[in-house]
């Protein structure tokens, strides 16, 4: 399993990459895509939607199942990644290069883990 050192991680397997203090990209981790299997569809929020900590902003479908995607921050959706909406399988091949939404106006950051803690967390879950 791959873990990116420059990102923060939630217990529900989203990654957060801060672009500045109030803007971040959000995606799904390698562990998440591995657990979900072949991804085929994402329900995206709309630009301008509010997102909040540990609350689903969308969901993602694999061939077998559907799973919520939770927000690791409070903020506003600045952009959705249309390329990922069209090709969710890119998350399978490149989870850390495939951001799902960009959040701006971040006012709150949830309880997140650094790469080392997240790696231990995944080992316990596996």
């Amino acid at each position, binding site marked *: 399993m791959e873990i990116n050192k420059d990102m923060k991680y939630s217990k529900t397997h989203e990654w957060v990459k801060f672009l500045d203090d109030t803007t971040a990209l959000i995606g799904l981790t390698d562990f998440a895509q591995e657990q979900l*299997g*072949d991804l*085929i*569809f994402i*329900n995206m929020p709309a630009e301008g939607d509010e997102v909040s900590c540990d609350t689903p902003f969308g*969901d993602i*479908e*694999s*061939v*077998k199942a*559907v799973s919520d995607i939770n927000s690791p921050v409070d903020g506003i959706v600045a952009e959705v990644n249309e390329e990922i909406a069209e090709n969710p399988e890119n998350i*399978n091949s490149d989870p850390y290069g495939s951001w799902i939404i960009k959040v701006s106006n971040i006012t709150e950051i949830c309880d997140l883990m650094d790469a080392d803690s997240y790696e231990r967390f995944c080992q316990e879950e596996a």
Partner: protein
Amino acid sequence: MQLRTPLYECHKRHNGKLVEFAGYLLPVQYEQGVIKEHLTVREKCGLFDVSHMTELFLEGEDALKNIQKIFSNDFAQTKIGQVKYTTMLNEDGGIIDDMIIYKFSDTKYMVVGNAANHEKDYNWIKSHVFGNCTLTDRTSDYAQLALQGPASTEVLKKLTDESNIPAKYYTFLEGKIAGMDCIISQTGYTGELGYELYTAPDNAVKLWDELMYTGRDFGLIPCGLGARDTLRLEAAMPLYGHEMTDDITPLEAKLNFSVKLNKEDFIGKTALEKRMESTRVLAGFKITGKGIVREQNDMFIDGKKVGFSTSGTHAPYFKYPIALGYIDKQYSAIGTKVVFKVRGREVEAVVTETPFYKRSKK
């Protein structure tokens, strides 16, 4: 309780993602994933562990009489070496299980049913067996491997004499594969040409390895329950607990071919004759909106509930989602537009002909 099939070590070795299914630990997929496994079965061939399936034997002078009474299809003209699909009905005409029955001789039949219904099937048959006929549960005497896909015959030819390979769909032979005694059956649950191989549990790992090794040249890969489900759904083959339940009749499930109302009396026949005018029928749906319909999503036309889905998935061969479901007969015409409610959202779909996928016969 989590049972292991005789092939458990093979699943571990191929890095199968193991889940519990009907009490057994089985791989939902291997490393390449459901879509790749699915497409490989459509184009080349895949190997499945289906050892969880139930094998019950009915034997004795009155075996045929029992089979005619307990099952809905007609076995009077069935020949030795033939396999036949049937349903088993309760007194209300609802489906207890669907199964395939193998005729070994006039006094020996093998009934292969769903793992999830193992005890229910055994108990039902046991309580209805009469005359000179014994029921034996030999599920633990068999491992079952399903070799499925257009290249399956070529793989088998490398491991057995061609005379051991059944040439016709729904027939079987007994013979050796790589030196091991097997029942070789041209059957399957994928909509492709393929074989189901029954052997003693002690042979299972060796048979798996021989097939995998020989099959590599033909593109053979191991496939899990995930691909088994998407393949059967594209072929619109019904699955017990989804398209079939204790209160759905085989006529509603469009399994008319497995019910012979003009044969002698069988369990469920009287009730079935009274339920001929059912208002619901199984139909196929192509999803035209955004989203994946799963089981038990309600279906609407102009805001009126007209049915519900029983299975749904992304169809890897077509690259769009499909579903099966029950719809009021008056709305079941091909081309009718419906809306499914999926997790609070509306997803559009259209009634489509089934099977969605039909293999081309070469």
